[in-house]
């Protein structure tokens, strides 16, 4: 348990520090955030043609309302936590990498749902938008990370891929 937490914290600190590094921001985080905005708009346009994106902003052409995807809303921190938890948990490397790949997909899929829901909540009611944005979705994204990690650990256990502790 102690080993898990030490590796978990170390990996997280390293990845979080790297995320804030300017070259990583410019080369990875901001391009990803813009891609997230484009993915959200492509999905939105399937039933709402009055929406477009520029940079990290999603905007309604009908009423001008827009949401900007800021740090903390692009799912990167949640992915960092998931990666750290999977790397720290004793398991074969192949399964770590597959788990990380599928886990990031699951977290980002949930994040697209967050962005889309906030886009509409913001047009409907400012207070509900603030509540969902600042508190509810923050918690739900982390619950998503927890569930993905638990499913992954359960898969490992079900396929006898966990190390044997003790004699």
């Amino acid at each position, binding site marked *: 348990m102690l080993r898990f937490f030490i590796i978990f914290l170390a990996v997280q600190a390293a990845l979080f520090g790297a995320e804030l590094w300017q070259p990583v921001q410019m080369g990875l985080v901001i391009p990803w955030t813009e891609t997230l905005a484009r993915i959200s708009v492509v999905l939105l346009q399937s039933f709402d043609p009055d929406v477009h994106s520029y940079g990290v902003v999603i905007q309604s052409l009908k009423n001008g309302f827009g949401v900007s995807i800021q740090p903390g809303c692009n799912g990167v921190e949640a992915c960092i936590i998931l990666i750290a938890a999977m790397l720290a948990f004793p398991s074969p490397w192949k399964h770590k990498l597959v788990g990380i790949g599928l886990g990031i997909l699951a977290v980002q899929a949930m994040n697209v749902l967050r962005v889309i829901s906030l886009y509409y909540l913001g047009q409907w009611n400012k207070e509900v938008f603030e509540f969902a944005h600042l508190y509810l979705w923050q918690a739900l994204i982390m619950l998503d990370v927890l569930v993905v990690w*638990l*499913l992954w650990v359960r898969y490992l256990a079900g396929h006898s891929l966990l190390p044997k502790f003790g004699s």
Partner: protein
Amino acid sequence: MNVSLLAGFLLRVILWLIVCLGVWYGLGRFLAMPVAWLCMAVAQTFFSGWSEAVEQSGTTLALLTNLQLPPPPGAPANASALLTAEADYRVIGYGLPMLLALFLASRPHAMAVKMLTGALVLLPFQAWSIVFTWLKQVAIQAGPEVTAQLQFGDTARNLIGLAYQFGTLVLPPLLPVVLWLLLDRKLFSTLLVEAYLERAEPEEKSP
């Protein structure tokens, strides 16, 4: 794979989360009080030279300083203003309802004690988030006239920025999950045992 245990847990957590968030939101100004006291102790201990007091207004915690702000354009030459840094408890405090929802969904033994323990453990981390939100405003955002009055170098400002980001983006959602895993391993153990048993059953049946 039978995921009903996890699905049921997740559903209960979401339902309890909505309830707990609503109650927590309503009680925000009371729940912010112990965090304000801790922040005041930190301010008095570590930056007593330029901090004057901590004031609470609703869920907003304000650090009053004796740092001089430059007069705004058009103000009289003898006008002066002092910097006040502000942080909202709610923005960093939602880990508490999250933790309570996790416990209410998993129903561990001695749940009340674990809830209280978890809530107490969260307090210093919430104070961390508030203090570094203040420090970010003072050392990074307030401008060169204010930072010149302090002893923060570039390294210190970078560390403040890092600690602020960590304290607002990572700690609030992560800590309740970590505390729950530490204080209640029943669900985690049950998941593992269930998975082992599912694998063992077909092997036992085979000749």
